[in-house]
């Protein structure tokens, strides 16, 4: 009924929509620790999109860098500076 390329494209559209929602929540959030958590969620949505686009090397590199290294460097920086942003 539904053939294989259509299933791949539906899942790609779903993962990119999820990334857009997480990115919007990241930019609009005033508490910086929550913004870092939303940014990690957006990285996971992008990693799922890379898996559906048949790129396994990039999935390995991007999950380690996006979820592990970015989140930890930003949390160290936030703990040494301020936590809330004054809009």
């Amino acid at each position, binding site marked *: 009924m539904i053939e294989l390329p259509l299933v791949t494209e539906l899942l790609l559209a779903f993962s990119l929509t999820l990334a857009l929602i997480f990115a919007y929540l990241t930019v609009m959030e005033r508490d910086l620790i929550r913004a870092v958590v939303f940014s990690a969620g957006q990285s996971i949505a992008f990693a799922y999109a890379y898996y559906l686009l048949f790129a*396994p*090397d990039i*999935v*390995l*590199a991007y999950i*380690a*860098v996006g979820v*592990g*290294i970015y989140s*930890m*460097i930003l949390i*160290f*920086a936030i703990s*040494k500076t301020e936590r809330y942003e004054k809009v």
Partner: protein
Amino acid sequence: MTATKALEEERTHGAIIGVGIAILLMLTIAAVILGATGYTPSEKIRPLAQFYLYYAMNIFKKELWAATPEAVNSMVWDYRGYDTLFETSVFFLAVIGAVAVLRLPGVKDVSTKGIFSGRGLSLIVKVVTKFIVAFILIVAISIAIHGNLTPGGGFQAGAAVSIATLVALVAFSRIFLEERHVTTKLMLPIRVIGVVGIGLVALAPAIIALTGTFAFAMQNQPKVWAPNFGFPPGFGDFWFSGNQFYYNFLEFLAVGAGFTVIYLMYSIPELIYKEVLKKK
């Protein structure tokens, strides 16, 4: 009054530049939708990509092959090797820059003995972390060594092994790592060994070319116009793919040690900095 007016002018200036960049990127994507790079997504790929896919593991035409069944790794280290060489040097310089900005003046290595005290995290976290650190180390070494046969390679393995150090740093404390000699004094020489090793393996054919034959730097297999020098692709069951095995392992050492140095420098608590800056 003029100070705030100049401020407002600069802010709108910045906003106009930002919006201009955004419109430029959006027009690029719109051009691709309307067919600037051919009809995307198409059922055929470009002739250059077909060339790389056909000749990456072509045992019938050994003048152009790269001796590795994984096309992406063959392009990272053999067909487009100079990109990776300079990317490694950019990463090296970034770690030097970050360490130089956050360095304490006059102090060589910081020890956080006696600053923290307490029970730490719960027992479940500590036991599970011990298992997880061992598994991550094994998986990272496997990704580095099998980089020319399965998805993986040098940089992916280096990023994964730094996650093991990070998890041990967060669940236990920095003293735990210092007592096992995982300090910046040990990691900086490992990083230098990795990067210098990559440079030597890249320059080895050019040094051998001084004796009369024709070989170029970063040469993997013997080519049509340089047929006298090449790394051996494998012995029986063990497949080296020329010099890509050595490149993957040395890049794993360099990247893993580089990330560990960044974590150890960032996790020094602020009390030490305030003490040192107050004494000056």
